[in-house]
């Protein structure tokens, strides 16, 4: 850890380093300069908050670090800090997110612009400490913005951008930057570190409590009883909800603008909502989310080399759901195969599949969709798996729709359970 801390002092120009996704997130937090960080370790997030603790101990990150007794306290402490004017950050996974749920659902309604990394993990039970997106997907309707990253560089860049998004006056909502447990948390790659001064200019001063605050100079009651027989009645509650939903929709345009600013200042372009990969002349497409996208692109390249007209659609922003960007991308193809790293228990498919179906119906487009569920419990989704996805989606494009969902990684290891 000493070597890690020493190498973290930021020069004024960008430079290359090698690290995993958890360390990249921690280094992004250092660059974003939050005032208060509250932490509780949980697999696969632990090394992220260990890095942050070391950065604070070494004076690289000048923030108050609160070692709380659990995730409920972690987020409650950050709510108070944010209301007092602090830029705030934490990270969690699976059961930690579950324990955080009560303050978690309160945060967006209070319009508190926090950034919280979700190092995604499959949800209990069966008992499991490995990657999967079931934890983040379980809270997809809790009112937080959710952004999913493809690689370690995108984790670093997106965590920084998330602070600007959360604090934007048209948004004022908490942001989850999601990166896949195992594949991004511990996956090591070369990344470019932006210069600290440029990040300072990009983010500006924290503006987190001008609209709601714990401030003796501006006395106000925070979160008074609203609705029912309270002052203003249910209409007051409806007003807050409508405003919250509006802030969520505003995030789509703000995200697009922030990504353009990022490209202009730092020279790296990320699709803000939905990335279209080799889609222009495609007959059909596969739809991905998170780190599986890398293997998906490799498989598309291989299929293209073999003459298949296939493209890829990567969903980066999942909440709010970018329905216009998705339907515009899918308007270019005759069929799509959607790969989820989690399940919707209600719909016998993955949650992304369900959202794509809804967006297509609302836009009046009807194309055959094939649903795939893979990468649960730390399983790899390989280029070979994606080859199967591509073959079955091609079959659907030819008018022969295979029954969904198709479970990848369903290889017979059941005999080994003893």
């Amino acid at each position: 850890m000493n070597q890690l801390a020493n190498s973290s002092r930021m020069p004024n120009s960008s430079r290359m380093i090698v690290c995993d996704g958890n360390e990249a997130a921690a280094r992004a937090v250092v660059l974003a300069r939050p005032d208060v960080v509250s932490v509780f370790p949980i697999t696969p997030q632990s090394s992220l908050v260990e890095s942050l603790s070391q950065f604070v101990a070494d004076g690289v990150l000048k923030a108050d670090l609160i070692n709380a007794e659990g995730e409920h306290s972690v987020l409650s402490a950050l709510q108070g800090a944010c209301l007092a004017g602090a830029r705030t950050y934490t990270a969690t996974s699976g059961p930690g997110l579950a324990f955080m749920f009560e303050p978690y659902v309160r945060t967006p309604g209070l319009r508190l612009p926090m950034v919280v990394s979700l190092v995604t993990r499959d949800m209990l039970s069966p008992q499991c400490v490995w990657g999967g997106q079931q934890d983040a997907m379980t809270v997809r309707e809790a009112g937080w913005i959710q952004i999913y990253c493809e690689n370690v560089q995108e984790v670093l860049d997106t965590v920084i951008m998330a602070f600007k998004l959360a604090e934007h006056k048209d948004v004022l909502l908490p942001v989850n930057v999601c990166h896949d447990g195992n594949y991004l948390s511990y996956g090591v790659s070369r990344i470019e570190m932006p210069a600290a001064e440029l990040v300072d200019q990009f983010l500006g001063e924290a503006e987190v409590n001008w609209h709601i605050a714990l401030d003796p100079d501006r006395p106000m009651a925070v979160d008074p009883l609203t609705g029912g027989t309270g002052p203003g009645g249910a209409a007051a509650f409806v007003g807050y909800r409508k405003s919250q939903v509006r802030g969520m929709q505003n995030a789509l345009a703000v995200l697009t603008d922030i990504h353009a600013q990022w490209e202009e200042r730092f020279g790296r372009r990320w699709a803000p909502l939905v990335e279209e990969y080799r889609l222009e002349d495609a007959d059909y497409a596969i739809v991905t989310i998170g780190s599986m996208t890398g293997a998906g692109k490799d498989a598309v390249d291989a299929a293209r080399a073999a003459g298949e007209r296939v493209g890829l659609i990567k969903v980066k922003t999942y909440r709010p759901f970018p329905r216009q960007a998705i339907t515009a991308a899918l308007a270019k193809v005759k069929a799509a195969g959607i790969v989820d790293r989690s399940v919707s228990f209600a719909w016998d498919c993955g949650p992304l599949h369900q959202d794509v179906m809804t967006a297509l119906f609302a836009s009046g487009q009807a194309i055959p969709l094939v649903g795939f569920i893979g990468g649960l419990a730390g399983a790899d989704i390989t280029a070979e798996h994606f080859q199967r996805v591509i073959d079955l989606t091609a079959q659907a494009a030819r008018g022969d729709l295979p029954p969904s969902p198709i479970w990848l990684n369903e290889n017979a290891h059941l005999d080994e359970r003893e």
Partner: protein
Amino acid sequence: MSMPDPSTLPKDLAPMATRLTTMLPGDWRALRPVVDRAKCVKCAVCWLFCPVQCITEKPRWFAAGMDVCKGCGVCATECPQNAIAMVSEDAF
């Protein structure tokens, strides 16, 4: 950063209030505390324990304010003299 006067903020942005409005829980009450003035020794235990702080001092006893008292019965349970009875609101 200059902070705006809270009273000028959009009314629908974040749930906060700058005016005091009261929502009195007296009409939630199913049971009413009735003090036996002969037993009350003015020890103030009821005043100390009342969760909504509705107990006021009278010349020879303590009494609960009926606008605020929600009938929880903590005062009756805690009274060392057993001077407080919880009586159904139907009797009033």
